[in-house]
């Protein structure tokens, strides 16, 4: 009797267990989905704008699997930058031509006195021309990277254009060093004369010596020259910093930093070139007697009187002469 009851219990127990298993098993077999909790590409891209992970090769930078931001950079490099560069440079050239045709060269109103005084020492001129030469080569080789494929490649052919671009790249890389040194020296040696002051406000109000028709007083550097100085210092500093970021990849930043560096580098460079065109214009055909300041280093006393009256007074007070020194002016 006991034996029979024990057997019946076992039978019922087995039956219940089987029922439970049969009820549970279909759901286990069908619902296993390993991707339910897995990482999803589109979700990662939406959240982080890039997909990044771990790599077991030594090059840890290759851990960035996907960065579609390159697409925006491509749009900037191929479209936006062409517009910025084209409008800035051609626009400035057009403006200068129109200005020259309407205004012509700004003459010395009182003519030349025949007496000169030193404006820039030989060291200052050396620094200026070293920076200027580097700038022109850097500008042309830089423009080649942006516009060369459209403007030069079709008529130069692939081999010749690549050869030229390779040398242009070498020049761009190597001349960045003397250019940077030049910018640093310019910053240091002309800083004292380029702090904005009250005289500049009046100078700007009266349109300076080139736009306006009178000669507002100015110290060694007028407000226009001070603007050029700060554009060179800040613009030059920016192109140097961003340029070295690109030249030494991954030392300073990852891929997104290099994209941003290229954007800043190219925009600043394009605007820099436009400003320098105006600087070259005023320094050459735009104003009589201006080029010799950076050429021979001396300017005519009448030029100083008209354009930098306060500086002339300073110089006279410093040298103790009522009048400017006469030629030849020895280095101080």
């Amino acid at each position, binding site marked *: 009797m006991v034996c029979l009851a024990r057997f019946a219990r076992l039978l019922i127990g087995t039956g219940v267990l089987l029922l439970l298993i049969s009820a549970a098993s279909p759901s286990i077999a069908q619902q296993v989905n390993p*991707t339910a909790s897995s990482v999803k590409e589109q979700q990662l891209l939406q959240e982080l704008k890039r997909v990044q*992970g771990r790599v077991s*090769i030594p*090059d840890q*930078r290759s851990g960035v*699997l996907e960065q579609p931001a390159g697409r925006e950079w491509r749009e900037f490099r191929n479209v936006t930058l062409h517009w910025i560069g084209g409008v800035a440079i051609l626009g400035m050239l057009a403006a200068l031509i129109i200005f020259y045709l309407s205004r012509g060269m700004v003459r010395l109103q009182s003519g030349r006195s025949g007496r000169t005084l030193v404006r820039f020492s030989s060291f200052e001129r050396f620094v200026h021309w070293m920076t200027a030469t580097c700038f022109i080569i850097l500008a042309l080789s830089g423009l080649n990277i942006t516009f060369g494929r459209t403007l030069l*490649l079709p008529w130069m052919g692939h081999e010749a254009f*690549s050869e030229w671009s390779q040398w242009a*790249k070498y020049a761009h890389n190597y001349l960045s060093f003397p250019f940077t040194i030049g910018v640093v020296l310019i910053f240091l040696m002309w800083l004292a004369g380029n702090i904005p002051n009250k005289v500049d406000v009046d100078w700007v109000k009266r349109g300076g010596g080139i736009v306006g028709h009178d000669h507002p007083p100015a110290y060694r550097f007028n407000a226009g020259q001070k603007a050029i100085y700060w554009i060179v210092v800040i613009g030059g500093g920016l192109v140097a910093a961003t340029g070295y970021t690109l030249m030494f990849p991954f030392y300073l930043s990852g891929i997104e930093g290099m994209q941003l560096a290229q954007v800043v580098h190219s925009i600043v460079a394009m605007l820099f070139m436009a400003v320098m065109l105006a600087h070259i214009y005023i320094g050459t055909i735009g104003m009589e007697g201006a080029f010799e300041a950076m050429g021979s280093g001396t300017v005519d006393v009448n030029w100083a009187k008209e354009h930098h009256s306060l500086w002339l007074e300073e110089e006279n007070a410093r040298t103790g002469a009522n009048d400017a020194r006469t030629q030849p002016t020895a280095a101080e």
Partner: protein
Amino acid sequence: MARMKFLCDADRCIECNACVTACKNEHEVPWGINRRRVVTINDGKPGERSVSMACMHCTDAPCAAVCPVNCIYTTADGVVLHSKDLCIGCGYCFYACPFGAPQYPKVGNFGSRGKMDKCTFCAGGPEADGSKAEYEKYGANRLAEGKLPLCAEMCSTKSLLAGDGEIIAQIYKERVMKRGYGSGAWGWKTAYRETIES
């Protein structure tokens, strides 16, 4: 003509890195350069996935669009190749590439960038197919011999697929249908502006 593509089935990749090794060996890729690598996302966490990635041979390739000397081109098979004779090593293709494919040997100016190197889909370069010059610059040209890229050919789990886009998409679709899941064709939307519905 086929339209060659890569597809990495992340649900099968076991991060063995054999594709990376095969690629380096087949093309004698110099030290420090990896044309292919395996990236593990969410490493050690639930839902971790590994993806083998090289050049995806994009439709309307961004690298080719931004190259200042126009040295990158797409073949009739949809493979993106470049000429190392024309490349000036400027790095622009690397900024534009969504997959980090372009690699630069540390030679040239300040050892920062030599001529670009990248996955060729085992299709060599502009030189004559199978020539010594082609091998030295770009590695083996398996495609010209009627073979597919070695990385995919020897993938032990057949996670990495290479070949005509429509065929590999079909293989992947069937897999997903059979097993009932799939985390998608990684990179396809970015590279080909399309994805495989499953």
